[in-house]
């Protein structure tokens, strides 16, 4: 029973790290750009919110196939397939949880506003310097929310993982898959144990996010 739990935690941690690295620049760009393609990128980023996991899983399965350009390239470079592998799950989770990282960050960056960034520039801070020393500290709460939600959403992911994971013990069998299998096999006791644990985890996570939201606010003037 600990196998799926450890695997899920590892998957959620790696996914969260990659998501934060990707989302910080993307969310900053979305928050500050006046480009006309911004709505396009926003829509693409938000797609996983609306698409059924099975649709996403289906397309990922096609993309990861050795015959597709991406899957073929991956196979050539690494000698393994993306489907049915931990790496494949990470790729799928990053795509699936992207809006949960980008949207809180973008909202936080938008709240920082151009005024503070102009003030930083007037004090000789170059753009990257200003981003790291002003925008990021002022968005700390949003960044934390983004990380927590990315982690939690990955833990709770089922449909996509079922589609591209192949349910391999120790490699792609996550908690949600294990719960599903127990339920389907009428093993309700095991299903309850895992499900209750997940329920408590989900509550604690959301409680943390909302508690953060109620904390001390920074006064911007």
């Amino acid at each position, binding site marked *: 029973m600990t196998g799926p739990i450890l695997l899920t935690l590892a998957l959620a941690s790696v996914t969260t790290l990659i998501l934060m690295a990707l989302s910080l620049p993307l969310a900053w760009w979305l928050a500050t750009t006046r480009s006309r393609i911004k709505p396009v990128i926003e829509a693409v980023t938000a797609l996983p919110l609306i698409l059924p996991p099975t649709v996403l899983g*289906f397309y990922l*399965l*096609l993309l*990861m*196939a*050795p*015959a597709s350009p991406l*899957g073929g390239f991956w196979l050539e470079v690494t000698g393994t*397939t993306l*489907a*049915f592998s931990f790496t494949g799950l990470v790729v799928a989770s990053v795509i699936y949880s992207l809006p949960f990282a980008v949207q809180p960050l973008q909202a936080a960056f938008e709240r920082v506003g151009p005024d503070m960034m102009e003030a930083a520039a007037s004090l000789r801070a170059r753009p990257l310097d200003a981003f790291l020393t002003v925008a990021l500290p002022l968005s700390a709460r949003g960044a934390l929310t983004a990380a927590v939600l990315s982690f939690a959403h990955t833990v709770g992911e089922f449909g996509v993982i*079922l*589609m*591209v994971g*192949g*349910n*391999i013990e120790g490699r792609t069998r996550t908690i949600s898959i294990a719960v*599903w*299998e127990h*339920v*389907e*096999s*009428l093993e309700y006791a095991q299903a309850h144990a895992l499900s209750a644990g997940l329920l408590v985890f989900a509550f604690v996570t959301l409680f943390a996010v909302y508690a953060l939201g109620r904390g001390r606010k920074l006064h911007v003037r």
Partner: protein
Amino acid sequence: MLRAALLALLFAVSARAGADEALIAVAANFARTAETLAEAYEAESGHMITISPGSTGQLYARIVQGAPYDAFLSADTERPAMLVEAGQAVAGSRFTYALGRLALWSADPDRIGPDGAAALSGDFRFLAIANPRTAPYGAAAMETLEALGLTDAVQDRLVTGGDVGSAYAFIASGNAELGFIALSQLPDGQGSAWIVPEHLHTPLAQDAVLLTRGADNPAATGFLAYLQTDAARAVIEAAGYAAGARE
């Protein structure tokens, strides 16, 4: 305008008087065949049949939770029996409507020759099967591997989807080089296949049962009776099943 619409509605409703509707839970592997059968039955009887496909385990769980199904076409024999025992299905209504056949399939036309066991001993990354713990076709696939003495050799390369449908998707997309699916799913002339001899696994008897909710529904009882007619048996056999024993 409104009056005309109301009149039209009234006619539509009265025209359907005497016709009953039934909602039938159908194991995924039989869904396509069930649709064909339902259409023929509707034309013959005037009743309305709605097919609700899903994995046998999933459908069973829903029925136990009180989902509004009138009859259940399972992919196994155990769950219909359990429903009868629990009083959620009508005693004596259970019968085998089809015997499933297993096929080993690959999207690659050259992978599987006349000897399926050779293909299973060959070089591949992944072998896809339905989940043996939740799907009868998965369990039959495991029995077949056991009978061929290949279980240990392929254990690490097994990938399982929820049902035979996912196994099919794994193979069709090329992510798994080969796998076990239902013979009824086998696409015409695509890739290569080996029809698994029946003696390699316990028969995949698929039982149907009338659920308590549909006990007095003529559409449901009529459809179950229709499944045992010669016309229906011909359709079932054409779809890649052996027809069940006649009652």
